[in-house]
């Protein structure tokens, strides 16, 4: 918990260390803060483990313009995937088991972010970004009352593409829509049920950006 707090505070407040005034820019100021609602879509090994989307994720981001087009900062988010497999029988070479299976994957990304705004002076501001940092991952399988759990911190990166549309000239609020691909460096070769080469998922995010 302490580690989580320190990393997230460092990521967020580093946004204030560098700044570039956007003088005369009616649409984009020096600093940006974004709250986003996000949907998660598992891919690859994660989708094989837990083929269920999640529609209750969130993200908070804070960054500052350091050049005319480039903003740097940090973000923290949350996504929780869950799937219940109703009571069923699973066979194995020497027998079988009948039970209900619950699978969970919770992830908290804490990353530095670099964003490139292509047209910072226009009403519609498309951007590309790259997030690099760590994820706290909690992957869990419950077979009846028996628990198989794997908690870990993993290096992660997440490229993203999106657009900010301010609610008018000199408006400090704007809509922020983006897509992000999250990749965790994660290897498990001795898992009881399956091997993992990565933990990856897509995000579709809708948020509000406040600029000042």
């Amino acid at each position: 918990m302490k580690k989580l707090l320190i990393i997230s505070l460092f990521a967020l407040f580093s946004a204030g260390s560098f700044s570039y005034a956007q003088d005369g820019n009616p649409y984009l100021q020096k600093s940006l803060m974004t709250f986003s609602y996000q949907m998660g879509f598992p891919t690859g090994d994660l989708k094989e483990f837990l083929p269920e989307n999640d529609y209750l994720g969130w993200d908070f981001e804070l960054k500052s313009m350091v050049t005319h087009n480039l903003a740097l900062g940090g973000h923290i988010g949350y996504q929780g995937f869950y799937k219940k497999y109703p009571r069923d029988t699973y066979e194995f070479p020497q027998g079988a088991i009948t039970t209900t299976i619950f699978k969970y994957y919770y992830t908290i990304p804490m990353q530095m972010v670099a964003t490139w705004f292509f047209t910072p002076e226009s009403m519609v501001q498309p951007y590309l970004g790259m997030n690099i940092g760590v994820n706290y991952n909690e992957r869990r399988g419950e077979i009846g009352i028996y628990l198989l759990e794997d908690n870990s911190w993993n290096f992660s990166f997440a490229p993203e593409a999106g657009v900010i549309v301010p609610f008018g000239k000199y408006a400090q609020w704007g809509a922020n829509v983006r897509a992000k691909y999250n990749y965790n460096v994660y290897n498990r070769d001795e898992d009881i049920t399956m091997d993992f080469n990565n933990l990856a998922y897509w995000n579709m995010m809708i948020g509000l950006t406040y600029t000042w």
Partner: protein
Amino acid sequence: MAKLRLWGSLSAMAVITLFMAACYEYHDDTYLDELDVTLSYYDTNYNFQNNTTFAIRDSVGIISDYLSDSEIANFYKPGGGNDDIKTLVRANLVALGYTEVSEDANFDFGVNLVVGAVENTEYYYSWWYGYYGYYGWYYGGWYPYYGYPWYPVSYTYQKGALLMEMVDGESLRDYREWAEDKTQGEIENADPDEVPDINFVWQSIVSGVAGSEKAYNQQRTERGINEAFDQSPYLIK
């Protein structure tokens, strides 16, 4: 301009609502019987179809650290749990094509039944209540902050398990013949190489957390017994 501000405010409210909803994950309630596990495994080299007769041991054994004497007595009274379990196991084996004989006969399978009932107590430090509707326990590791009291919380639950075993009759008779003229101490201290192996050809465990209603627990036990035989098609004659 006013319209834009209105749309802006509505969008803000929508996003904030979704943001707050995302903080509260809710999963479906889990019922105790969903956590029941029925597991079976068998000797893949054994030919079940060559065998016909079985004998069920006279009583279901009990291993427990919390059942009272009166509860155990109720289990063994006529029409109690002991009879119910034996009756259902018998019915499943007969349905598979086997014939019951007495324990004195040269049966092909010996059937042994044991009930385990143990009480578990778990402790955790309660600091933040989360995951409403999620059954289970969340291990601590959260560091307490000054001003936020944290305190140890314990909860107790009872786990039940029914073990069903099918033993090759010939190996069991060989063992009994070897043990016939020996004391318990001699049996326990015997050289393992001299002790005849008892060949367990099929074993099944039905386990779960006990509920407070006896009828509910009984229904789950019966479901587990049926599942154990349903998931073992190689037993069909």
